[in-house]
């Protein structure tokens, strides 16, 4: 068998389109070019000062960076869950509500308008992480041990989550007036770039390290592709599936912190609404098979920012917020169809053929 060595140049285009990063990056560029033509103001970034007098950057790109970071963090966990279980977690939004609620309960206690915080934010956050990971483990056990389809299993928490969140704070809406609590979802004084972006970078670095220095990728993929085989190679598929849900739980806790910090309060029925759909779309847009198996983390993370870029673009063109999902759906269909393996195969067939056939 001769190896298919692509000749430089002629195959460049073909190889480019075959790369999994091609679709999300191309979609992002397309959206940016579209905005550039329609209204270059999209790219305007201004340095303002907020009410306290600290410098903050503002503009559409900053919004994308800001909100897209929440999605990117969730996409990390969602990618792992998708790869390991071949299904998706639709309870992410509800779980964020629970996380936010736990965080506020820890910081405020039963007093809804506290003057001072009951404990350092870090301690409260760690407790939130534990709770969110427990809820993740709950989903994971349903999926891995009881072998319920992920979407159905997580439907339970999807339905119950927001009620649980309200119940944790006795249906009260605590408001935190302490300004330092707002740093996580807003700006740290003196730094004009929104904090969520830095948090996302930390998360990306952490997962990159995990993928490099552990066998998480190999184990997750093996379990996602062939559970029986994985088991006979000494892996524990049940544990690995639960682990993926627990990691998603951790991501949920982080986004919960950002969300609650951003508003300094919580609205149980609205917070992070439908965010799970955007996170799943980010994974799909990254060209990852929603039926599990092999995954590309970078593509998912870029996918998250593309989804946010799309949302922001639509907002900018004054699409009413209740009509937004319909517009989004159209664009998303196009993107997802384009990134589907079957279409990509056809597309690369249209590209210049590799020369290896003649060589062999």
């Amino acid at each position, binding site marked *: *068998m*001769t*190896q*298919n060595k692509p000749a430089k140049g002629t195959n460049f285009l073909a190889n480019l389109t075959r790369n999994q990063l091609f679709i999300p990056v191309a979609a992002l560029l397309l959206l940016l070019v579209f905005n550039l033509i329609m209204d270059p103001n999209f790219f305007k970034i201004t340095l303002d000062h907020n009410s306290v007098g600290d410098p903050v950057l503002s503009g559409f790109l900053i919004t994308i960076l800001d909100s897209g970071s929440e999605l990117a963090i969730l996409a990390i966990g969602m990618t792992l869950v998708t790869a390991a279980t071949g299904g998706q977690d639709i309870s992410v939004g509800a779980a964020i509500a629970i996380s936010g609620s736990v965080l506020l309960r820890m910081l405020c206690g039963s007093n809804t308008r506290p003057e001072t915080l009951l404990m350092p934010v870090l301690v409260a956050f760690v407790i939130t992480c534990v709770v969110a990971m427990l809820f993740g483990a709950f989903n994971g056990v349903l999926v891995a041990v009881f072998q319920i389809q992920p979407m159905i299993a997580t439907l339970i928490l999807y339905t119950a989550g927001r009620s649980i969140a309200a119940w944790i704070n006795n249906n009260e809406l605590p408001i935190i007036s302490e300004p330092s609590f707002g740093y996580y979802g807003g700006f740290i004084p003196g730094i004009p770039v929104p904090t969520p972006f830095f948090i996302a970078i930390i998360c990306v670095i952490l997962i990159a390290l995990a993928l*490099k*220095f*552990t*066998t*998480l990728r*190999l*184990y997750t*993929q*093996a379990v996602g*592709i*062939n559970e*029986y*085989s*994985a*088991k*006979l*190679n*000494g*892996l*524990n598929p049940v544990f690995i599936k639960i682990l993926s849900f627990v990691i998603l739980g951790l991501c949920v806790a982080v986004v919960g912190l950002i969300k609650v910090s951003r508003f300094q309060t919580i609205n149980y029925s609205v917070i992070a609404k439908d965010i799970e759909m955007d996170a799943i779309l980010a994974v799909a847009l990254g060209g990852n098979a929603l039926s599990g*198996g*092999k995954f590309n983390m970078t593509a998912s993370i870029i996918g998250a920012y593309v989804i946010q870029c799309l949302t922001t673009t639509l907002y900018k063109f004054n699409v009413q917020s209740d009509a937004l999902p319909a517009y989004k759906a159209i664009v998303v269909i196009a993107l997802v169809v384009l990134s589907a393996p079957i279409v990509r195969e056809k597309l690369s067939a249209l590209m210049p053929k*590799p020369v*290896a*056939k003649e060589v*062999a």
Partner: protein
Amino acid sequence: MADNVVLQMRNIHKSFPGVKALQGVDFTLRKGEVHALMGENGAGKSTLIKVLTGVYGKDEGQISMEGKEVLIHSPQEAQKNGISTVYQEITLCPNLSVAENMYIGRLDDIYQNWKKMNSDADKILQSLDIPAKATQQLSSCSLAVQQMVAIARAVDTDCKVLILDEPTSSLDEQEVEKLFKLMRDLKARGVGIVFVTHFLDQVYEICDRITVMRDGKLVGEFEIETLPRVQLVSKMLGKELDDLSDIQGEYSTYQNKEGEAPVFEAEGLSSDAGIRPFDFHIRKGEVNGFTGLLGSGRSESVRAIFGADRILGGNVKVNGKPVKIKKPIDAMKQGIAYLPEDRKRDGIVGDLSVRDNILLAQQVLRGFLKPFTKAEADKIADEYIKLLSVKTASADTPIKSLSGGNQQKVILARWLLTHPEYLILDEPTRGIDVGTKVDIQKLVLKLASEGMSVTFISSELDEMLRTCSRLIVMRDGRMVGELSGEDLNQNKVMNTIAGGERE
């Protein structure tokens, strides 16, 4: 001759990126004949069949049915032209009923008379002597019965050409006999049958003509009477074959030391897979085997040793020390390796690269926090690809795109990499060409002479007689005999399998 010919393929060419799979292959099938298509793995048999059934498009050449040229772009079109196929791996839907599986995809009306469909299906099943009911869920049938249902499905469509792609690899002898009876019936009705198999006995039992392929090219078409076995094998391999002679003598037997505890010893071992508690031991450097009919519990026994099924009881000692083996990882840590019977389901991780598939078990043994570096992984993968001469475009190729024999080599590489003390091979040569078979048998003897203990399971008795020094005979989930030395011959083993030997 022209009247008789039902299918003619002329000058078929097909390339995949980097590989020429078929180069100018001709194939002629006559009415009412069983025509064997033979060749090693990668000779192009499967590709030729996939071109014929419309799974792949051909690059060049023509196909004609009864003299008229036909263009076949999809399996549906092939079926419309009267070409039906039963593949080696069962391609039915396990959670539908038997009747639904037989009629799926060829229901003409939206309205379906389920009652009639079930009674029709029952009639066909009865006429073919298949032990299944129309309303039974397919997954509740044994693998062999599922295979027969697939054949029943193919036969029921009004077919002129029936392609059987290794249909017998999961059947035991009686079932093969039934299948042959069925094939003879169809032959009498004038159906042309293309029979792909690796079992030479079966070829000489049922076939009229043989077409041999090698490296994507046609070697020739032969009448069965004019081609003795040895010549067939040498034509398939493209060389004179002396490898098929006694190979056991080539390797020295490993010399056991006095008083050495067995490498593995089990007492009263049983699992939830339906085997009775059994005792078993293997010494260092020994090659032994489990034999018995399909479903006799030979695979289940070794699965119990490896902890692949749920263990219900028994004591296990490794090198004389008592250990607990509950899960595969426990067995792996004790230096036991297991190459499973069902390669597709239990062996390969399809979408992963050849490299990852080789590394998987060793990586799991190393642990979660110690991944191989890229350089290490490349080095190991290349080393083992070379060692076992795996034919793959590169180490990055997904394993699922390799041929069956090469997939098996990769799985073998995976377990050799863990440097096991005790290697269990369950049907390592199933669906593999003669050359690779001999390679694997030789490898087993070589490893044993170096001190590795090997348990070797195969449906082909002569293969086991050639490699094993001790055979354990299973029947109905129970160990019924143990043969070694003088007793290791076809007759004795057959008698023991059939029963009545053990007082």
